[in-house]
Protein backbone atom coordinates (compact mmCIF):
# COMPACT_ATOMS: atom_id res chain seq x y z
CA UNK A 1 0.00 0.00 0.00
CA UNK A 2 1.37 3.38 -0.99
CA UNK A 3 -0.03 6.87 -0.49
CA UNK A 4 0.23 9.44 -3.24
CA UNK A 5 -0.27 13.07 -2.33
CA UNK A 6 -2.19 14.98 -5.01
CA UNK A 7 -3.66 18.29 -3.75
CA UNK A 8 -5.43 19.25 -6.94
CA UNK A 9 -8.72 20.95 -7.65
CA UNK A 10 -11.24 18.37 -8.87
CA UNK A 11 -12.30 20.67 -11.70
CA UNK A 12 -8.71 21.56 -12.65
CA UNK A 13 -9.25 20.48 -16.26
CA UNK A 14 -12.08 22.97 -16.68
CA UNK A 15 -10.17 25.65 -14.74
CA UNK A 16 -7.16 25.32 -17.08
CA UNK A 17 -9.37 25.68 -20.16
CA UNK A 18 -11.19 28.63 -18.61
CA UNK A 19 -7.90 30.35 -17.77
CA UNK A 20 -6.75 29.92 -21.38
CA UNK A 21 -10.03 31.43 -22.59
CA UNK A 22 -9.68 34.32 -20.12
CA UNK A 23 -6.20 35.07 -21.51
CA UNK A 24 -7.58 34.99 -25.04
CA UNK A 25 -10.47 37.32 -24.18
CA UNK A 26 -8.04 39.70 -22.49
CA UNK A 27 -5.77 39.76 -25.54
CA UNK A 28 -8.74 40.43 -27.81
CA UNK A 29 -10.26 42.89 -25.31
CA UNK A 30 -13.63 41.21 -25.38
CA UNK A 31 -15.78 41.63 -22.28
CA UNK A 32 -17.42 38.31 -21.45
CA UNK A 33 -20.52 38.01 -19.29
CA UNK A 34 -21.85 34.67 -18.02
CA UNK A 35 -25.58 35.18 -17.42
CA UNK A 36 -27.13 32.73 -14.98
CA UNK A 37 -30.50 32.14 -13.31
CA UNK A 38 -33.11 29.47 -12.73
CA UNK A 39 -35.27 28.56 -15.75
CA UNK A 40 -37.79 31.26 -16.54
CA UNK A 41 -36.28 34.23 -14.69
CA UNK A 42 -36.03 36.17 -17.93
CA UNK A 43 -32.39 35.94 -19.02
CA UNK A 44 -33.25 36.00 -22.71
CA UNK A 45 -35.76 38.84 -22.28
CA UNK A 46 -33.13 40.87 -20.43
CA UNK A 47 -30.70 40.29 -23.30
CA UNK A 48 -33.29 41.35 -25.86
CA UNK A 49 -34.06 44.53 -23.91
CA UNK A 50 -30.42 45.35 -23.22
CA UNK A 51 -28.60 44.45 -26.41
CA UNK A 52 -31.00 46.18 -28.77
CA UNK A 53 -30.05 49.49 -27.13
CA UNK A 54 -26.28 49.05 -27.56
CA UNK A 55 -25.95 46.99 -30.74
CA UNK A 56 -25.15 50.02 -32.88
CA UNK A 57 -22.30 50.99 -30.58
CA UNK A 58 -20.72 47.61 -29.95
CA UNK A 59 -20.10 44.36 -31.79
CA UNK A 60 -21.90 41.69 -29.80
CA UNK A 61 -22.00 37.92 -29.86
CA UNK A 62 -24.25 35.64 -27.84
CA UNK A 63 -23.84 31.98 -26.94
CA UNK A 64 -27.09 30.39 -25.79
CA UNK A 65 -27.03 27.27 -23.62
CA UNK A 66 -30.07 25.03 -23.30
CA UNK A 67 -30.73 21.32 -23.07
CA UNK A 68 -32.75 21.41 -26.29
CA UNK A 69 -34.06 23.76 -29.05
CA UNK A 70 -32.69 26.76 -30.98
CA UNK A 71 -35.47 28.95 -29.60
CA UNK A 72 -33.38 31.37 -27.58
CA UNK A 73 -30.73 31.84 -30.28
CA UNK A 74 -33.54 32.59 -32.73
CA UNK A 75 -34.97 35.22 -30.38
CA UNK A 76 -31.57 36.93 -30.12
CA UNK A 77 -30.98 36.78 -33.89
CA UNK A 78 -34.28 38.60 -34.39
CA UNK A 79 -32.68 41.62 -32.73
CA UNK A 80 -29.96 41.55 -35.39
CA UNK A 81 -27.26 40.14 -33.12
CA UNK A 82 -25.18 37.03 -33.90
CA UNK A 83 -26.18 34.14 -31.68
CA UNK A 84 -25.23 30.51 -31.65
CA UNK A 85 -26.97 27.79 -29.69
CA UNK A 86 -25.27 25.08 -27.66
CA UNK A 87 -27.58 22.17 -26.88
CA UNK A 88 -26.19 20.27 -23.92
CA UNK A 89 -28.52 17.30 -24.39
CA UNK A 90 -29.03 16.57 -20.73
CA UNK A 91 -26.16 18.44 -19.11
CA UNK A 92 -27.19 21.04 -16.58
CA UNK A 93 -24.42 23.59 -17.25
CA UNK A 94 -21.94 24.79 -19.86
CA UNK A 95 -18.23 23.97 -19.57
CA UNK A 96 -15.18 25.85 -20.81
CA UNK A 97 -14.53 23.21 -23.51
CA UNK A 98 -17.95 23.88 -25.03
CA UNK A 99 -17.30 27.63 -25.11
CA UNK A 100 -13.92 27.04 -26.77
CA UNK A 101 -15.64 25.07 -29.55
CA UNK A 102 -18.40 27.66 -29.96
CA UNK A 103 -15.85 30.45 -30.46
CA UNK A 104 -15.14 29.35 -34.07
CA UNK A 105 -18.44 31.05 -34.89
CA UNK A 106 -17.18 34.49 -33.84
CA UNK A 107 -14.44 36.85 -35.00
CA UNK A 108 -12.95 37.84 -31.64
CA UNK A 109 -10.92 40.61 -33.26
CA UNK A 110 -14.14 42.42 -34.02
CA UNK A 111 -16.11 41.54 -30.90
CA UNK A 112 -16.57 43.94 -27.94
CA UNK A 113 -19.02 41.90 -25.90
CA UNK A 114 -19.64 38.18 -25.67
CA UNK A 115 -22.64 37.08 -23.64
CA UNK A 116 -22.92 33.48 -22.53
CA UNK A 117 -26.47 32.70 -21.46
CA UNK A 118 -25.98 29.61 -19.34
CA UNK A 119 -28.43 26.75 -18.91
CA UNK A 120 -31.24 27.75 -16.54
CA UNK A 121 -29.90 26.38 -13.27
CA UNK A 122 -28.73 28.14 -10.11
CA UNK A 123 -26.59 25.26 -8.84
CA UNK A 124 -24.19 23.66 -11.28
CA UNK A 125 -23.08 26.64 -13.42
CA UNK A 126 -21.62 28.18 -10.22
CA UNK A 127 -18.84 25.58 -10.23
CA UNK A 128 -17.84 25.85 -13.88
CA UNK A 129 -15.67 28.81 -14.85
CA UNK A 130 -16.10 29.69 -18.54
CA UNK A 131 -13.30 32.25 -18.68
CA UNK A 132 -15.79 35.07 -18.22
CA UNK A 133 -15.08 38.48 -16.69
CA UNK A 134 -18.14 38.24 -14.52
CA UNK A 135 -21.19 36.23 -13.71
CA UNK A 136 -24.46 38.13 -13.55
CA UNK A 137 -27.27 36.35 -11.73
CA UNK A 138 -30.95 37.02 -12.41
CA UNK A 139 -33.67 36.49 -9.82
CA UNK A 140 -37.27 37.28 -10.72
CA UNK A 141 -39.92 38.46 -8.29
CA UNK A 142 -42.31 35.45 -8.57
CA UNK A 143 -39.47 33.18 -7.40
CA UNK A 144 -39.59 34.62 -3.87
CA UNK A 145 -37.37 37.03 -1.98
CA UNK A 146 -35.37 34.24 -0.32
CA UNK A 147 -34.00 32.87 -3.61
CA UNK A 148 -30.47 34.14 -2.87
CA UNK A 149 -30.48 32.38 0.52
CA UNK A 150 -31.55 29.13 -1.13
CA UNK A 151 -28.81 29.21 -3.78
CA UNK A 152 -25.82 30.74 -1.98
CA UNK A 153 -23.09 29.18 -4.13
CA UNK A 154 -24.17 31.12 -7.20
CA UNK A 155 -24.69 34.38 -5.31
CA UNK A 156 -21.19 34.01 -3.89
CA UNK A 157 -19.49 33.88 -7.30
CA UNK A 158 -21.59 36.56 -9.04
CA UNK A 159 -20.57 40.18 -9.57
CA UNK A 160 -24.03 41.62 -10.11
CA UNK A 161 -27.61 40.59 -9.41
CA UNK A 162 -30.58 41.62 -11.51
CA UNK A 163 -34.02 41.47 -9.91
CA UNK A 164 -36.36 41.04 -12.87
CA UNK A 165 -40.14 41.36 -13.30
CA UNK A 166 -40.51 44.25 -10.84
CA UNK A 167 -43.70 45.21 -12.71
CA UNK A 168 -45.30 42.30 -10.81
CA UNK A 169 -44.43 43.63 -7.35
CA UNK A 170 -47.95 44.94 -6.76
CA UNK A 171 -49.32 41.40 -7.04
CA UNK A 172 -46.69 39.57 -4.99
CA UNK A 173 -45.41 39.39 -1.42
CA UNK A 174 -41.87 40.07 -2.57
CA UNK A 175 -39.80 42.45 -0.47
CA UNK A 176 -36.96 43.77 -2.65
CA UNK A 177 -34.95 45.03 0.31
CA UNK A 178 -35.12 41.64 2.00
CA UNK A 179 -34.03 39.93 -1.22
CA UNK A 180 -31.07 42.28 -1.54
CA UNK A 181 -30.16 41.75 2.12
CA UNK A 182 -30.18 37.97 1.72
CA UNK A 183 -27.80 38.37 -1.21
CA UNK A 184 -25.53 40.87 0.58
CA UNK A 185 -25.21 38.45 3.49
CA UNK A 186 -23.63 36.00 1.06
CA UNK A 187 -21.75 38.44 -1.15
CA UNK A 188 -21.42 42.06 0.03
CA UNK A 189 -19.66 43.14 -3.18
CA UNK A 190 -22.65 42.56 -5.48
CA UNK A 191 -24.08 45.38 -7.61
CA UNK A 192 -27.89 45.33 -7.75
CA UNK A 193 -30.28 46.25 -10.57
CA UNK A 194 -34.07 46.17 -10.36
CA UNK A 195 -35.61 45.87 -13.80
CA UNK A 196 -38.73 45.08 -15.75
CA UNK A 197 -38.38 43.91 -19.33
CA UNK A 198 -42.11 44.50 -19.70
CA UNK A 199 -42.11 48.22 -18.85
CA UNK A 200 -38.41 48.93 -19.47
CA UNK A 201 -37.94 50.26 -15.94
CA UNK A 202 -34.36 50.01 -14.73
CA UNK A 203 -33.00 48.73 -18.04
CA UNK A 204 -30.99 51.88 -18.77
CA UNK A 205 -29.24 51.84 -15.35
CA UNK A 206 -28.32 48.20 -15.89
CA UNK A 207 -27.19 48.90 -19.46
CA UNK A 208 -24.95 51.73 -18.22
CA UNK A 209 -23.22 49.31 -15.85
CA UNK A 210 -22.71 46.83 -18.67
CA UNK A 211 -21.33 49.42 -21.11
CA UNK A 212 -18.90 50.62 -18.45
CA UNK A 213 -17.57 47.06 -18.11
CA UNK A 214 -17.21 46.79 -21.91
CA UNK A 215 -15.40 50.14 -22.12
CA UNK A 216 -13.10 49.31 -19.19
CA UNK A 217 -12.08 46.07 -20.88
CA UNK A 218 -11.48 47.81 -24.20
CA UNK A 219 -9.23 50.42 -22.63
CA UNK A 220 -7.04 47.87 -20.80
Amino acid at each position, binding site marked *: *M*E*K*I*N*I*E*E*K*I*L*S*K*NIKKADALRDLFKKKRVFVMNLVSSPGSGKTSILESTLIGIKNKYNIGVIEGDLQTENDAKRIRKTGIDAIQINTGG*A*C*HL*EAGGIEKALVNFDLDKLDLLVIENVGNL*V*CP*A*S*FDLGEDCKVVVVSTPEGEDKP*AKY*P*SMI*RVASAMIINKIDLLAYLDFDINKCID*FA*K*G*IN*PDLDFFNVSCKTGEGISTWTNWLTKQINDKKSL
Partner: protein
Amino acid sequence: MHEAGIAQNILDIAVENASNNNAKVINKIYVKIGKLAAIEHDALLFAFDALKEDTIAANALLEIEDIPIKGRCMECKHEDIYDEMFFSCKRCGSYKVELLTGEELNITEIEVD
Protein backbone atom coordinates in the same frame (compact mmCIF):
# COMPACT_ATOMS: atom_id res chain seq x y z
CA MET B 1 -26.97 17.66 -10.45
CA HIS B 2 -23.39 17.84 -11.71
CA GLU B 3 -22.14 15.14 -9.34
CA ALA B 4 -21.55 12.71 -12.23
CA GLY B 5 -19.18 15.21 -13.84
CA ILE B 6 -17.43 15.76 -10.53
CA ALA B 7 -17.08 11.99 -10.01
CA GLN B 8 -15.60 11.55 -13.50
CA ASN B 9 -13.07 14.31 -12.85
CA ILE B 10 -12.08 12.70 -9.53
CA LEU B 11 -11.56 9.33 -11.26
CA ASP B 12 -9.59 10.87 -14.14
CA ILE B 13 -7.20 12.67 -11.79
CA ALA B 14 -6.80 9.60 -9.54
CA VAL B 15 -6.14 7.21 -12.44
CA GLU B 16 -3.68 9.62 -14.06
CA ASN B 17 -1.71 10.04 -10.83
CA ALA B 18 -1.76 6.31 -10.13
CA SER B 19 -0.47 5.52 -13.63
CA ASN B 20 2.27 8.14 -13.33
CA ASN B 21 3.41 6.33 -10.19
CA ASN B 22 3.21 2.87 -11.82
CA ALA B 23 0.42 1.77 -9.49
CA LYS B 24 -1.81 -1.12 -10.54
CA VAL B 25 -4.79 -0.60 -8.26
CA ILE B 26 -6.40 2.37 -6.50
CA ASN B 27 -7.80 1.44 -3.08
CA LYS B 28 -8.93 4.77 -1.74
CA ILE B 29 -9.43 8.33 -2.95
CA TYR B 30 -9.57 11.26 -0.52
CA VAL B 31 -11.48 14.42 -1.41
CA LYS B 32 -12.31 17.61 0.46
CA ILE B 33 -15.63 19.25 -0.29
CA GLY B 34 -16.64 22.61 1.10
CA LYS B 35 -20.19 23.25 2.23
CA LEU B 36 -20.53 26.04 -0.34
CA ALA B 37 -19.59 23.72 -3.23
CA ALA B 38 -23.18 22.41 -3.24
CA ILE B 39 -22.32 18.75 -3.73
CA GLU B 40 -24.72 16.05 -2.60
CA HIS B 41 -22.89 13.12 -1.00
CA ASP B 42 -25.22 10.32 -2.04
CA ALA B 43 -25.37 11.52 -5.63
CA LEU B 44 -21.58 11.80 -5.77
CA LEU B 45 -21.05 8.32 -4.29
CA PHE B 46 -23.67 6.83 -6.60
CA ALA B 47 -22.02 8.36 -9.66
CA PHE B 48 -18.56 7.39 -8.44
CA ASP B 49 -19.58 3.75 -7.96
CA ALA B 50 -21.14 3.60 -11.41
CA LEU B 51 -18.21 5.25 -13.18
CA LYS B 52 -15.36 3.40 -11.43
CA GLU B 53 -16.29 0.03 -12.98
CA ASP B 54 -13.75 -1.27 -15.47
CA THR B 55 -11.05 1.13 -14.22
CA ILE B 56 -8.11 0.49 -11.88
CA ALA B 57 -10.28 2.16 -9.23
CA ALA B 58 -13.06 -0.44 -9.59
CA ASN B 59 -12.81 -1.39 -5.90
CA ALA B 60 -11.80 2.02 -4.60
CA LEU B 61 -13.55 3.79 -1.75
CA LEU B 62 -14.26 7.49 -2.00
CA GLU B 63 -13.50 9.17 1.32
CA ILE B 64 -15.24 12.56 1.53
CA GLU B 65 -14.18 15.12 4.11
CA ASP B 66 -16.73 17.89 4.60
CA ILE B 67 -15.24 21.32 5.10
CA PRO B 68 -17.33 23.81 7.08
CA ILE B 69 -17.61 27.47 6.13
CA LYS B 70 -15.15 29.48 8.18
CA GLY B 71 -15.11 33.23 7.84
CA ARG B 72 -13.00 36.12 9.12
CA CYS B 73 -14.50 39.57 9.56
CA MET B 74 -12.46 42.09 7.58
CA GLU B 75 -13.38 44.82 10.07
CA CYS B 76 -13.07 43.32 13.57
CA LYS B 77 -11.02 40.24 12.54
CA HIS B 78 -13.38 37.86 14.39
CA GLU B 79 -13.28 34.29 13.04
CA ASP B 80 -16.25 31.95 13.21
CA ILE B 81 -17.95 28.95 11.62
CA TYR B 82 -21.08 29.73 9.56
CA ASP B 83 -23.77 27.05 9.44
CA GLU B 84 -26.31 29.41 7.92
CA MET B 85 -25.64 30.87 4.49
CA PHE B 86 -25.58 34.41 5.77
CA PHE B 87 -22.12 35.71 6.48
CA SER B 88 -22.56 38.72 8.69
CA CYS B 89 -19.95 38.85 11.45
CA LYS B 90 -21.25 37.15 14.58
CA ARG B 91 -19.47 39.74 16.73
CA CYS B 92 -19.82 43.14 15.02
CA GLY B 93 -22.49 42.43 12.37
CA SER B 94 -20.40 43.56 9.40
CA TYR B 95 -21.15 41.89 6.05
CA LYS B 96 -17.48 42.13 5.07
CA VAL B 97 -16.60 38.56 5.92
CA GLU B 98 -13.81 36.87 4.04
CA LEU B 99 -14.27 33.11 3.67
CA LEU B 100 -11.25 31.10 4.74
CA THR B 101 -12.74 27.68 4.02
CA GLY B 102 -15.93 26.14 2.65
CA GLU B 103 -15.43 26.56 -1.09
CA GLU B 104 -13.11 23.54 -1.55
CA LEU B 105 -13.56 20.97 -4.27
CA ASN B 106 -10.22 19.21 -4.00
CA ILE B 107 -8.71 15.77 -4.38
CA THR B 108 -5.96 15.41 -1.82
CA GLU B 109 -4.57 11.88 -1.78
CA ILE B 110 -4.92 8.37 -3.15
CA GLU B 111 -3.93 4.99 -1.71
CA VAL B 112 -2.60 2.56 -4.30
CA ASP B 113 -0.89 -0.82 -4.73
